[in-house]
């Protein structure tokens, strides 16, 4: 009995020492492992692919002598990471600037009170349609929603030219569309609801089911399946097609509905985080990111982003804003449609 009591005391003492050690690590940051405030820095959360965004961030470091600490999102987990993290960190933000590779989640974050307004001088020549009226975000360097076609399987004369071709009996079971709950595909369906209404969007989704369109895990999967020849064609983003073409895959790109309502353009967006820890550096970074030079670099990169301003140089053979008949959309209305679109997608496509 005495031994047991001694043991219990000994265990408690040991536990108290352990907890005290753990707490000491928390309470004495300088003794531990934090040196965050030593040099000027800016914390960027970006949904832009690391391979494209990292060189831009490194250039900023070189130009301004400000250390950039980045958190990159992972496409495979559908931007769960950064946006949820920004929401969860709202009361004690760690991030200074959110660089999103699309627009819907940026608007959603604005509505959740995560963002702060900042009108960057670099955004003055960006069209009003691509900027928030209250200054919470600004758009730049867009991607387009395009058709990716396997050139070995489909002759040029037979290339589809419209999203409506997804419903052609000739392509039954031969096409792919990424899961529309996530990423730019969800933006695409929300845009459809905003521009064409609920009934037309429901008919579109039902058409995908009826014509046995493959719903796959992401836009890069659409590209890869088409490139392998598993499917004839699919719907994806310009950057996916361009990267595939650079890797020598047998794929071609078509801008859909150029003779109809137009192709959806989805801009990158940048926004300042409310109560960010390094606001001065954050504003400097936003100014840099919205510059014409960065837009030109993104156009020249493997992701082949489409500049939203005229006069920004674009490599030969790549798309410029003037080459695309863009689908006219109100991004705020699109964000309003997102929840309705998600409900339709779940009830029709993902049963």
């Amino acid at each position, binding site marked *: 009995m005495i*031994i*047991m009591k*001694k*043991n*219990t005391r*000994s*265990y*408690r003492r*040991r*536990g*108290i020492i*352990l*907890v005290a050690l*753990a707490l000491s*690590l*928390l309470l004495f*940051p300088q003794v*531990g*492992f*934090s040196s*965050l405030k030593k040099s000027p820095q800016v*914390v960027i*959360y970006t949904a832009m*692919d690391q*391979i494209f965004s990292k060189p831009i961030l490194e250039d900023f470091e070189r130009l301004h002598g400000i250390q*950039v600490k*980045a*958190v*990159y999102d*992972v*496409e*495979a*987990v*559908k931007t*769960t990471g950064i*946006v*949820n*993290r920004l*929401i*969860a*960190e709202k009361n*004690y933000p*760690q*991030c200074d600037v959110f660089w999103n590779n699309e627009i819907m989640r940026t608007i*959603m974050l604005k509505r959740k009170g995560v963002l702060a307004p900042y009108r960057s001088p670099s955004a003055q020549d960006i069209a009003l349609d691509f900027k928030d009226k209250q200054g919470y975000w600004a758009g730049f360097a867009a991607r387009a929603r395009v058709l990716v076609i396997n050139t070995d399987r489909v002759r040029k004369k037979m290339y589809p030219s419209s999203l409506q071709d997804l419903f052609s009996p000739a392509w039954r079971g031969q096409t792919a569309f990424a899961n529309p*709950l*996530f990423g730019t595909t969800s933006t695409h369906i929300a845009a459809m609801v905003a521009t064409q209404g609920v009934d037309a969007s429901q008919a579109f989704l039902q058409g995908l089911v009826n014509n046995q369109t493959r719903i*796959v*895990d*992401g836009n*890069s999967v659409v*590209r*890869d399946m088409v490139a*392998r020849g*598993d499917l004839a064609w699919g719907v994806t983003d310009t950057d*996916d097609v361009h*990267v595939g073409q650079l890797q020598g895959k047998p794929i071609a790109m078509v801008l859909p509905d150029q003779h109809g309502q137009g192709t959806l353009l989805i801009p990158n967006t940048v926004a300042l985080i409310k109560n960010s820890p390094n606001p001065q550096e954050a504003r400097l970074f936003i100014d840099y990111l919205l510059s014409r030079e960065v837009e030109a670099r993104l156009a020249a990169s493997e992701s082949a982003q489409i500049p939203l301003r005229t006069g920004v140089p674009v490599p030969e053979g790549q798309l410029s804003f003037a080459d695309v008949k863009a689908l006219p959309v109100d991004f705020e209305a699109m964000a309003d449609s997102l929840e309705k679109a*998600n409900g339709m997608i779940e*009830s029709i496509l993902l*049963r």
Partner: protein
Amino acid sequence: MILRTISRSCHQVQASPLVLLALLIGVVPPFIMVSQSFYLEGNFSLHHYIQLFSEQRTWALLGRSLALALGTTVFSLPVGLILAVCCVSQHFPGKKLATALILVPLFIPSHIQAMAWTALLCSQGLLSQAPLSVSMFILILAYSPLVFLAAHAGLSARDRGMEEAGALLACPWQVWKKITLPLLGPHLCFALSLVFLLSFFNYGVPATVGLSSFPVEILARFSAYYDEGGAVALAMPIVALVLVLLVSQKQYRGKKSFFTLSGQMKKKSLSERKSLLTGLLIWGSIAFTVALPLGTLFYQSLPLHTLSLALQHASKELGTSFLVAVLSASVAVILAFLLASSSQNFSQRGRDLLQTMMLLPLAFPATVMGVGLIHLWNRPWTQALYSSIFILVVVCLARFLPFAFLILEASLAQVSPSMLEAASLCNPSRINKLLRIELLLNKKALLVSWLVVFIFAMGELGATLLVIPPGRETLSLKIYSLMHYGNGPLVAALALVLSGVNLLVSFILLSLVQR
């Protein structure tokens, strides 16, 4: 009487600072999330639960995930058991190596196996025709080694004299049914519970194959609707299911352990014989479950210099992953050992309560845990931890401490208290007793639990991506980032590097266990 017992149990649990630390790490974060699921715009509400569970689709997805987990569990049993029986009772060329190689799928994260198998099966068109069957097939291959491991441990540790005595009076089938299987029961029961849980919660395989499952739906609540409350509400039936499962397997096992201190055969079996056919079966299954997926990854990673490129490209990320995994495994083992050791002094109810509490984190998906950890640790006075890689260690502890605790608790339960008391009479030093008796007797369990946490930590993705400090990256995150970019050879090479590190560390540690 009941109240007094509960009060005593609670007192025991609350009394220990170690228990409080474990609560803080693994239980408080998901419970912050659970409490949020009962609020809507600041007011108490059951809105999330009513809305989600009134939808037929929710139940359909739950049913599909249950079918996936149940099917994986049911089919893993014969696969693992047959292989274990063959390895223990038969002699064939390369038996020792084959026994180790069968376990290889456990050391490769399941999403990497899914990558390899989808590349193999895609051209057959099977993915679109039968995503449920394909997911189940991949999960069986990934998790049946758990059944093999448990059955092999049980068969190796059993007293064969009992079987041989039975064989004098009954046919082999009767001996198997009446003696061997009941002896294996606790081992199999624990392994099958783990297989069920791991396959139910698996996100990577159904998502890669294109199967709408319950974990995918929980993720959708987060990433399509950004609805934390809804995601947690969806997870609640799983929490209940896990608790029922863990409590019932505990009831079934009673005081019988699934972990044996001495893994060596007590006696050579009279029926042990050479069999070329068994050798073919075992080596054939290894070729199918290990060589084929790893060979596919190797083929995808060609040319060979891609491997060195991968190492150059991701050496920093590999270093971070390795550091986090080593720290997590070491802290988890120390904490789990101290907790399990303390729990030996608790009353039965106290121990049950502690076990249930320790297992609770297993019931929550990684994303729920990740967001809960942000809510708990992202505060002004905890920035030192939150902004360093130590938050990744906290993530791994929160998610994988239960595994270390389960193994060590089962092992410590087999150390006779009278032995420890006798030792205390000779030398009352607690340190001496710990170093010279408890640690030495549980050496095998300590190494195995370290390895389990290490492997899980190396592959952790779901919660890591939510709390990764700015400027840092782990190898798993790197692999997923590159997957989107479509760099097939580099992704395959990095997957091979990750698997290689796991295999190397496992080989070193298992060699130590065998000494």
